[in-house]
């Protein structure tokens, strides 16, 4: 495989709704680029809220508890991103589970070792935002990884240890050093950054600009 001629680094968390929408838009923009074959997308992890409990709760009640809003307000917080997800043809279930994502993010790093970190996170997000109540379950995470070629034994080993926890912290620190204040955070060609989710047209333009900048 030849070296990619444009690298796009993306920081994201599984439970971040804008990361889910952004992943699909950016992937589409890359796929449609005339330079698609020479672009490499790399996923990096960013744990948006390390204080989320390890026990499962549900998004509306989680938001009520975390932000002190009413249940109606909690749902309103979701509806706008749900609307944009729907406009992009993405399923988006409001009543979905939530729990601490450190285990998932550690598995994304395992996925990166096998060259499938990005699709692994995308598969986790598809399960979560698609409404699977068992999106965080160990069996689900194993199934998703195995589907991508990650050995089940390695997934179980990661889940049984704290392996890759340092990698999650290192990724976070690297993003902060680059100026990230939230996610998704996208760096194109180590020259341009998009903080947050952009439209498909803006991702396309950003790719073109980064390509021009890199290859002049």
């Amino acid at each position, binding site marked *: 495989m030849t070296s990619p001629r444009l690298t796009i680094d993306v920081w994201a968390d599984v439970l971040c709704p*804008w990361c889910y929408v952004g992943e699909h838009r950016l992937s589409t923009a890359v796929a449609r680029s005339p330079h698609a074959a020479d672009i490499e997308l790399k996923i990096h992890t960013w744990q948006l809220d390390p204080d989320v409990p390890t026990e499962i709760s549900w998004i509306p009640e989680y938001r009520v508890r*975390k*932000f002190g809003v009413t249940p109606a307000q909690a749902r309103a917080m979701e509806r*706008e991103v749900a609307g944009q997800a729907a406009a992009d043809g993405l399923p988006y279930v409001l009543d979905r589970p939530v729990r601490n994502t450190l285990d998932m993010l550690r598995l994304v790093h395992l996925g990166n070792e096998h060259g499938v970190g990005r699709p692994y996170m995308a598969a986790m997000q598809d399960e979560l935002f698609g409404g699977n109540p068992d999106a965080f379950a160990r069996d689900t995470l194993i199934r998703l990884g195995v589907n991508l070629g990650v050995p089940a034994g390695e997934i179980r080993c990661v889940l049984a240890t704290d392996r890759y926890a340092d990698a999650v912290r*290192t990724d976070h620190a*690297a993003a902060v050093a680059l100026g*990230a204040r939230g996610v998704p955070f996208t760096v194109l060609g180590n020259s341009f*950054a998009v903080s*947050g989710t*952009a439209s498909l047209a803006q991702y396309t333009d950003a790719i073109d600009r980064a390509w021009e900048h890199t290859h002049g």
Partner: protein
Amino acid sequence: MADTPPTPSPLEFIETGPDGGWCDARTGLCTTAAGSEVPLPEGEDAGPQAGARSTPSSPPV
């Protein structure tokens, strides 16, 4: 092989438009770039960014 994040260097931040949003690491709030954000209850100090509606276009100072 571990994926190495890019090294810090001056980045040009590209503005995002109304069809996007982001999740603020400090507040945990996920907001649309053009849409509304549910206000926090009165008296809750969410800091100066709590009412921000647009995604940041530059790194923090």
